[in-house]
């Protein structure tokens, strides 16, 4: 997917003034945050589970080569095929080739963020295939020709009215014009249309929530069951997964699944939790004839050394964006690439390039709410700060900021000069603002005063006032 992260500022501004988007976004905080909190409080030792999740992922990453090979061998044993995709182009080519060899005409797709990452839809289009998204949210944005705006709720930016209008346009040629329909009605309609597609698809493409090394299995969690119809009905099943999705054992998978649903949607378990091991076996009554798994690198091995390895623990639950006040204000599209919110602000600069994503590490207040809910304890604010440091070192930080910091630091390191000058400046500002107590406008503070008054300082600096206070005290003694 082409990055538009360099347009963050104008996109964010537009998002703030988009009433439909703002209406839709209220659901993020209202729904996910409360449900997660309820379940986390109900779980006997959620903090312990987070510790286990973190330790398990750290262990797996430290021995990733071993577990990848184990996984590959087990998939072969189960009769499946493993494909290694180093780049996005590799992944596109591999998937297109599989479809071509299967003589496919129609492809159904479950939600896959790794697929978004490598632009799998574009590759399928280019290969002349009809592709149908089967996750309801993905289906909606496919109709709207938009990318997902959230990693687990791709159409969270759409209001019900907008969805009604889309269904009307695509399913009824405008006969329902402007009618607001009920959710079950819309779901049933989409289900009816998708059912035909499930039955006619030649290839089903899904993501994977985790890959189990000891069995060569993959887990798929959904709430709609679309993932199961996508992987089990067509002749060929292709799953795309980043190499960091690996876990050593089924026990570890269970830790991950317990963390995932609670953190993501505030559910104890998703409605469907499916384990897939290889293609249909001799005595199976259903399942695909072929099973392919595409293991995607796409820059991940570059993250293995150094601090950003911690980001490879990410299990793509979306809790960080659900709890991010910036995401809640501007939605996911403003971030400009596949992954929005805090995890996206770390991943996008790494995958797309620091110079093309200058705003992402900075558009964060470092409030730490994301880190406090991350199921695998990724220190997102620290990683964002590290990216800022990399920007600074590569001279990508704006000159005004660099010079401003240098001047400020020069004074901050010379307390006598700093104290003398600040006393003068504050004295003046304090006199100007004393009667009203605040400024509506102030030179050089336009960004502040656009939406806020600027509180005026009190009479003098604390340092000056404290010295006076001490000398008065001495005189009295």
């Amino acid at each position: 997917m082409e990055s538009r992260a360099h347009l963050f500022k104008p996109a964010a501004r537009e998002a703030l003034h988009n009433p439909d988007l703002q209406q839709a976004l209220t659901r993020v905080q209202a729904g996910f945050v409360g449900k997660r909190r309820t379940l986390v409080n109900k779980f006997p030792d959620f903090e312990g589970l987070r510790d286990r999740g973190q330790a398990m992922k750290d262990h797996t990453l430290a021995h990733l080569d071993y577990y990848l090979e184990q996984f590959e061998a087990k998939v072969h044993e189960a009769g499946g095929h493993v494909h290694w995709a180093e780049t996005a182009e590799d992944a596109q080519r591999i998937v297109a080739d599989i479809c071509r060899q299967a003589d496919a005409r129609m492809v159904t797709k479950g939600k896959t963020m790794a697929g978004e990452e490598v632009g799998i839809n574009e590759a399928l289009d280019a290969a002349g295939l009809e592709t149908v998204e089967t996750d309801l949210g993905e289906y909606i944005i496919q109709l709207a020709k938009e990318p997902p705006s959230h990693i687990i709720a791709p159409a969270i930016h759409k209001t019900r009215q907008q969805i009604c209008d889309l269904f009307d346009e695509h399913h009824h040629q405008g006969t329902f014009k402007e009618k607001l329909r009920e959710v079950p009605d819309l779901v049933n309609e989409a289900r009816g249309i998708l059912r035909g597609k499930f039955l006619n698809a030649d290839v089903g493409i899904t993501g994977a929530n985790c890959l189990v090394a000891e069995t060569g299995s993959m887990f798929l969690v959904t709430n709609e069951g679309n993932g199961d119809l996508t992987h089990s009905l067509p002749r060929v099943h292709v799953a795309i997964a980043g190499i960091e999705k690996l876990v050593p054992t089924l026990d570890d998978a269970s830790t991950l699944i317990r963390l995932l649903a609670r953190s993501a949607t505030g559910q104890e378990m998703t409605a469907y939790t499916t384990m897939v091991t290889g293609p249909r076996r001799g005595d199976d009554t259903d399942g695909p004839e072929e099973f392919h798994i595409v293991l995607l690198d796409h820059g991940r091995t570059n993250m293995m050394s150094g601090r950003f390895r911690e980001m490879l623990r990410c299990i793509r639950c979306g809790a960080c964006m659900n709890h991010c006040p910036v995401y809640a204000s501007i939605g996911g599209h403003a971030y400009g690439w596949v992954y929005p919110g805090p995890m996206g602000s770390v991943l996008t600069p790494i995958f797309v390039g620091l110079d093309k994503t200058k705003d992402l590490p900075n558009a964060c207040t470092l409030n730490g709410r994301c880190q406090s809910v991350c199921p695998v304890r990724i220190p997102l604010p620290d990683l964002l700060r590290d990216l800022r440091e990399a920007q600074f070192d590569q001279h990508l930080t704006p000159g005004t900021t660099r010079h401003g910091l240098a001047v400020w630091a020069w004074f901050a390191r010379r307390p006598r000069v700093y104290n003398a000058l600040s006393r003068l400046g504050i004295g003046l500002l304090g006199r100007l603002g004393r009667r009203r107590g605040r400024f509506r406008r102030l030179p050089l503070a336009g960004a502040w005063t656009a939406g806020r008054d600027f509180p005026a300082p009190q009479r003098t600096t604390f340092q000056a006032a404290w010295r006076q206070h001490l000398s008065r005290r001495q005189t009295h003694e």
Partner: protein
Amino acid sequence: MSQASSPAPRPTVALFVTCLVDLFRPSVGFATAQLLEQAGYSVDVPEAQTCCGQPAYNSGDRAHAKQIAKQVIATFREYAHVVVPSGSCAGTITAHYPDLLRDEPDWAQAARDLADRTWELTRFLVEVAQVDLPTVDHKTTTTYHDSCSGLRELGIRSQPRQLLGRVNGLQLREMADTDVCCGFGGTFCVKYPDISERLVSNKVDNIAATGADMVVAGDLGCLFNIAGRLHRLEKPVRAYHVAEILAGTARSEPAIGEGDRS
């Protein structure tokens, strides 16, 4: 554990007043010093302090952040306790200096040592001082904003509420989303003013919804942001630092952003 029953001399406490309090609201510094003295400590304000370096640190300017961190470490080396009326600045010292200086073992050790001696004000009063402060009367309905760094880096949540609970006449009404950022974020508020404005508008809405006539917090950055937005929207809610309420000086001092005749 009252003051009268613990006459043992207490060590001198260094007040790290923070750059924002120094420049914009000395009354918070005086209130903090008063509270510490009432708790039986003598208070020093080292003249060599300026800022904790957080603006440089959070902007990726590690070199300057390190220089300033070393200056702070040297300035406060001799004190048994360093008290800061800000969770954000205290968080920088305790949660970030050791990491900032990780490549220089001697300084990293000195940073850990300072971190162990550094306290945010309300936490210091509750957990270290452990004295009953003189009674304060302040009839008001108040809501409390949890500053992010204090809350999540230092675990400060119950301490200010416990202390406010002892102010006669003060009724605390919790707002919705009290743990959500007000949108200040240091330089964030001027780099992304429109996003920041949205965040502070949400905060101000939540404050107004409580019907409280006062908002209190432990960080001047958040308070300036919140008070500035409250004034711009002409909402009749006054903003004070928690130290000013606890010391009883808020009754005579104009609230943040209010003048002699506002």
